[in-house]
């Protein structure tokens, strides 16, 4: 366990991406089998133990130590797993900070796999007694599901690829044909067997991405235009017998959107935007707010699916049957996609329409007039572009809508998370009603520089008028210029408004709070 817990510590403390990759690569080369396979599963989010609930961990520690001291400690440290890892009282004869080496990562995994909910706390306690604080932390994170060490599945795979001089896209291709602890993957990486054959498995293909448009215009005879929809980009991979949905990072999100995976029975790979149906666009795509209700869920209830029904707006066709068409020009792929559409269930799939404009000026007018909640901007795709991985210059451009801005007054502040956990970095801000009352219209925790953050933190501390648990109410004197992509009606807030992706554009130290914007003014921007 020591090797693994030290890897996790290293990943927590190392800032640079290359540093993290080097740590992962070294571990993958040096750790024994099957430990390293389980570690890879844990780092890529493919290990879902959930052997113990957080509440059971709390009960365990309260039974072993003074509950008051535990509560004070947790309050101070912030994180449950870390508090318990640091606080854990070992039995007298055992040194508190020694990992005695008797537990390997795979032994831990085996134990957690086999254990019942009822027996889990005892099993945990026995294992904790053999570990040091880092080991206990790693064990608690594994057992409660989710390491949260700030790395993506893609980064973990890149580290693995780097360890054995492999191409990460090659690893990605064989990945979904294999399962934890990935014995075959290591056998292949170390040259003991040939490349595992991914054919017949629904594996992920790298997405083609776009550069922001910086030129003043492009020639529409070379570029086709279509809307950039504000959902999440997904790839549908069907083998005829199995279908998987992948996010842009290559994460398998089929479980969050089972209705889509079930509705697709074809043998093809498609690229599209996952959206939720809503009333903001005449029964079509709802705003991103609606989609957010469905994100990040491992299991999804029937009610969720009924309240926020998902569908996919298709952009591109990569593979049809055994025919890989990625090298064909966009124009031909588009024709293949259009021809493919009729065999898809119309309630789950539609085609992203092209924008017909005679020239670029006309397109600019159409873009400026588009205030649909589900539109993020315009995509420009070279008509002869092949489908290639990543961002390739001059093939695809994204031309986002300009953000809207409003001058708001800071009302409340809360401490951030992670490396901002000592800073008041989450701000709730409001605008004026006609009666001269401030109502919250949004919350932002980005957009400022580190220097500005220090200033804002100081402002909050020096201007606190009340405290509600972790939240501080501040003197209503500071105007923040807030940028946001769009604004919607919302029943969740008293102001009746909700902003999409609000961020702090500027701190308006010069502006008196009374001159900030009004709710009435903001309502005019609602789409």
């Amino acid at each position, binding site marked *: 366990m020591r090797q693994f817990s030290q890897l996790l510590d290293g990943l*927590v*403390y*190392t*800032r640079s991406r290359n540093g993290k990759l080097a740590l992962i690569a070294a571990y993958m080369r040096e750790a024994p089998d099957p430990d390293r396979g389980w570690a890879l599963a844990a780092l890529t989010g493919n290990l879902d133990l959930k052997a113990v609930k957080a509440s059971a961990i709390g009960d365990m520690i309260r039974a072993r*130590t*003074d509950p*008051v*001291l535990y509560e*004070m*400690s947790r309050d*101070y*440290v*912030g*994180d449950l797993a*870390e*508090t318990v890892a*640091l*606080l854990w009282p070992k039995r007298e004869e055992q040194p*508190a*900070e020694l990992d005695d080496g008797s537990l390997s990562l795979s032994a831990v995994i085996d134990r957690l796999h086999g254990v019942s909910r009822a027996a889990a706390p005892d099993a945990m306690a026995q294992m904790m007694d053999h570990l040091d*604080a880092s080991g206990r932390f790693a064990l608690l994170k594994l057992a409660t599901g989710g390491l949260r060490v700030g790395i993506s599945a893609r980064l973990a795979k890149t580290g693995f690829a780097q360890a054995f001089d492999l191409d990460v896209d090659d690893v990605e291709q064989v990945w979904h044909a294999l399962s934890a602890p990935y014995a075959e993957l290591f056998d292949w990486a170390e040259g003991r067997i040939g490349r595992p054959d991914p054919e017949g498995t629904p594996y992920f293909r790298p997405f083609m991405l776009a550069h922001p448009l910086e030129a003043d215009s492009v020639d529409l005879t070379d570029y086709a235009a279509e809307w950039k929809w504000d959902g999440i980009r997904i790839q549908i991979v069907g083998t005829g017998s199995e279908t998987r949905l992948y996010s842009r990072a290559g994460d398998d999100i089929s479980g969050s959107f089972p209705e889509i995976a079930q509705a697709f029975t074809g043998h093809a790979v498609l690229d599209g935007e996952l959206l939720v149906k809503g009333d903001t666009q005449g029964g079509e795509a709802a705003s991103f707010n609606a989609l957010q209700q469905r994100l990040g869920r491992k299991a999804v209830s029937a009610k969720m699916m009924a309240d926020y029904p998902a569908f996919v707006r298709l952009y591109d066709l990569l593979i049809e049957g055994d025919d890989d068409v990625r090298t064909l020009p966009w124009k031909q792929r588009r024709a293949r996609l259009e021809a493919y559409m009729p065999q898809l269930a119309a309630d789950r799939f539609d085609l992203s329409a092209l924008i017909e404009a005679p020239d670029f000026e006309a397109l600019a007018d159409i873009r400026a007039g588009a205030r649909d909640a589900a539109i993020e901007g315009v995509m420009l795709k070279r008509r002869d572009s092949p489908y290639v991985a990543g961002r390739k210059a001059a093939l695809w451009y994204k031309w986002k809508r300009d953000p809207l801005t409003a001058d708001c007054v800071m009302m409340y502040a809360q401490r951030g998370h*992670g*490396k*901002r*956990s*000592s800073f008041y970095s989450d701000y709730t801000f409001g605008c004026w009603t006609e009666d001269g009352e401030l109502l919250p219209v949004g919350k932002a925790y980005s957009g400022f520089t580190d220097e500005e953050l220090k200033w804002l933190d100081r402002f909050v501390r020096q201007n606190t008028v009340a405290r509600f648990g972790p939240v501080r109410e501040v003197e209503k004197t500071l105007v923040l210029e807030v940028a946001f992509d769009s604004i919607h009606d919302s029943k969740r807030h008293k102001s009746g408004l909700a902003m999409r992706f609000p961020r702090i554009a500027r701190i308006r130290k010069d502006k008196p709070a009374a001159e900030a914007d009004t709710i009435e003014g903001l309502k005019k921007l609602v789409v």
Partner: protein
Amino acid sequence: MAHWIEPHPTGIYVRPADAWIDPSLPQERALVTHGHADHARGGHGHVWATRETLAIMALRYGTASGTAVGYGEEIRLGGVTIRYVPAGHVLGSAQIVLDHAGERVVVTGDYKRRPDPTCKAFEPVPCDIFVTEATFGLPVFRHPETGSEMDRLLVALHAHPDRCVLVGAYALGKAQRVICELRARGHRDPIYIHGAMERMCALYQDFGIDMGELRPATGVPAKEMRGHVVVSPPSALNDRWSRRLPDPITAMASGWMRVRQRARQKNVELPLVISDHADWDELTDTIREVAPTETWITHGREEALLHWCMTHQIKARALALVGREDEDEG
């Protein structure tokens, strides 16, 4: 009990001696436990402290009128017998033992129980009132062996010959302790130090603490510092100052490094849990050992230590002294 000693927010007043212990405001007569700024302030009329502490105060505040009190030496002020006993915190640090009217009060200042090559070890003195700090007064604070932390520092240093390890350490005490611990582990290479700690290191050397070859980190080409240890005050770690160094691995020596987010907030890559303060076990073991009738807690996480005392049948109170605790110092 002991009505002759009075805690005030600005320090502890010893009435019969008409003297203050570690006062935060200038006073005519001050008894000072050790040289850290939250205990030793400038501007007092007359100071009683160890020779080392007086020298540190002179370095920081210019010369002041003072009486040097040796460890174990007894002095009498207005009917109070006063003795300075090693506290194990930094060079010259002392607990002040006061006897009057058949009662004994021990004011520890800051202290630790672990070995420290730069100062004399803490000596427990049984007493009626024990005045303790509680900087790390939470059971999550359990400092590991100093040796294992130093080993991690040396492993990181040797694994990256093209980089340097920049150790953030408080300029009085921690910096010199880290350097001496490195020397004790056979590290003979020159160690580079930030300009702000040069005079303090020289003072330590004047008191016979051998720190080997120290070089200023200023005015030296980055290349020369590759593969070496550089020591700076914590405030310089993420400061422009550190840009002159060859791709530093940022380390920090502090008891606070036990908590991950504390280390992350300070952008520390190599947290070293090395503290000059007692950890939770040391605090509670010490209270048990000196077995006072009453425990007074000066500063830190006093709430948790109060709770512990209460559940162990020990009478205790929190004093809420102002201006104590500089986090860098942990």
